[in-house]
């Protein structure tokens, strides 16, 4: 039973950075040993995967810091699409969520619709997106925006609604003019919830990036499906694991931004 307080928790988390790396190293080593034992084409050794990855990513000239073509032609375009679409979705979602959340009746009518739209598997809409936008970046962006929008909208609505009555009374009694209301009171109060929505949708964005790329044939998604059909399982594993690394890095970066923006919050346990 964990009876540690939040503060003790934080201390432990800080102290455990070393543990984190140790565990990761141990996991990689375990993989290596199991792969040697299993001796299967489907399950290559970790050292081979890393070597292949280094080959793919670091084959470029020195003036590009050794970064290979794959970085510029596969990884970065994929990331740019995912992040661009996610940012678009964030702007739309926060605006829409604020409008819906401020209205006293809009969510009564739109709440069910939005939950329905959120339950639609975006993958099955790919044929429709392909017809609408053709195969290419536009389609990928449309698919990502469609699937990341709803969590942001719902979390923003929730955040906007969670401003408590005492704060509203206080702000009114201090004479806050109407036009500053959203910027000074509503959005700051909703920010923690909005960030929760942004983090959720960031991982959805990466997911949909892969889906759209597998279906549309580009970027990392295409590499994963090609390496499978050409029996290059080592490289396939590399791309899959790279997604884990990218997801981890993006999430960490967003958490850092969140800490900066929400610096006013009492430190909570590290809620990844």
């Amino acid at each position: 039973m964990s009876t540690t307080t939040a503060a003790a928790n934080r201390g432990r988390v800080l102290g455990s950075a070393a543990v984190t790396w140790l565990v990761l190293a141990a996991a990689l080593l375990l993989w290596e040993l199991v792969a040697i034992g299993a001796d299967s084409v489907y399950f290559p050794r970790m050292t081979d995967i890393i070597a292949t990855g280094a080959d793919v990513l670091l084959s470029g000239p020195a003036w590009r810091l050794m970064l290979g073509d794959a970085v510029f032609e596969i990884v970065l375009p994929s990331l740019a699409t995912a992040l661009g679409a996610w940012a678009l979705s964030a702007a739309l979602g926060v605006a829409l969520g604020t409008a819906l959340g401020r209205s006293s009746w809009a969510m009564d009518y739109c709440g069910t619709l939005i939950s329905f739209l959120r339950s639609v598997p975006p993958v099955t809409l790919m044929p429709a997106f392909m017809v609408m936008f053709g195969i290419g970046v536009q389609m990928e962006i449309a698919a990502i925006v469609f699937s990341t929008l709803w969590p942001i909208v719902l979390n923003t609505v929730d955040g906007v609604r969670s401003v408590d009555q005492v704060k509203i009374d206080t702000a009114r009694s201090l004479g806050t003019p109407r036009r500053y209301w959203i910027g000074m009171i509503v959005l700051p109060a909703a920010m923690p919830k909005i960030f929760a929505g942004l983090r959720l949708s960031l991982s959805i964005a990466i997911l949909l990036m892969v889906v759209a790329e597998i279906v549309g044939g580009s970027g990392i998604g295409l590499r994963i499906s090609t390496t499978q059909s050409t029996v290059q399982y080592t490289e396939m594993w590399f791309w899959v694991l790279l997604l884990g690394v990218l997801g981890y890095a993006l999430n960490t970066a967003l958490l850092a931004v969140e800490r900066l923006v929400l610096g006013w919050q009492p430190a909570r346990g590290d809620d990844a």
Partner: protein
Amino acid sequence: MRTFAKGLTGLLGFFLLWEITVQAGVLPDYWVPPASEVATTFVELLGDREFLLGVIATLLAWLIALGVAVGIGVPAGLLLGSVPALQSASRALIEFLRPIPAVALIPLVMVTIGSGPDAKITLAVYAAVWPILFNTIYAFGEIDPVLLDSARATGANRRQALTWVALPHAAPFIFTGVRVAASIALIAVISVEYIAASEIGLGRYILEGGMNNGHLDQVMAGTVLAGLAGWAINSALVGSGRRLFRWADTEERATR
């Protein structure tokens, strides 16, 4: 009930808007078929034996996947949540594995397991286990030590305190995790059926519609059904969560 009527109004309004924009030519009809056409296909499908068998296959795979995910996620979460050393050790691994989307594993699973029911269940379990695991770990991490101490002070031993205080405290959180996992598992099953071209299932049916170009009504009808099913499952779980955990307002707010 009035809120239900309003929600339904919103939903119908959406389909009406869809119909009107397509009929009026604002959206070209080779982009999206009008809602009425999709509705007709939808009704026809409900009388189609083969299609219904596919839907049942999908739901069965979903149910099994969810069961397995609960069977793995809850015990693992209880273990990780109650042993701090394990939790911090596993943290890095979980944080790293979590962002690997199940879709990215489809090619891998296809070569190792094939594209039958095992494949979609495996991937759906992988997808669904995370929210359950996370919510369980956090439910145990977030419990107020004062609560446990006061239970111990009433003479409860460690095990009793765990059973009567920690578990009830954690239950609503775990349930929320299961609810989220249920939606995810359904989307996962359908997506795998679609991408891996399973022999049978709702996703497979939508894939066929997409392949014989021009059958967008089939795609849309299948997608609408999938959305409705996901929405119904989620609403049912929200409802029962509210009834089960009346003392906690977690569900209420987590679902909106």
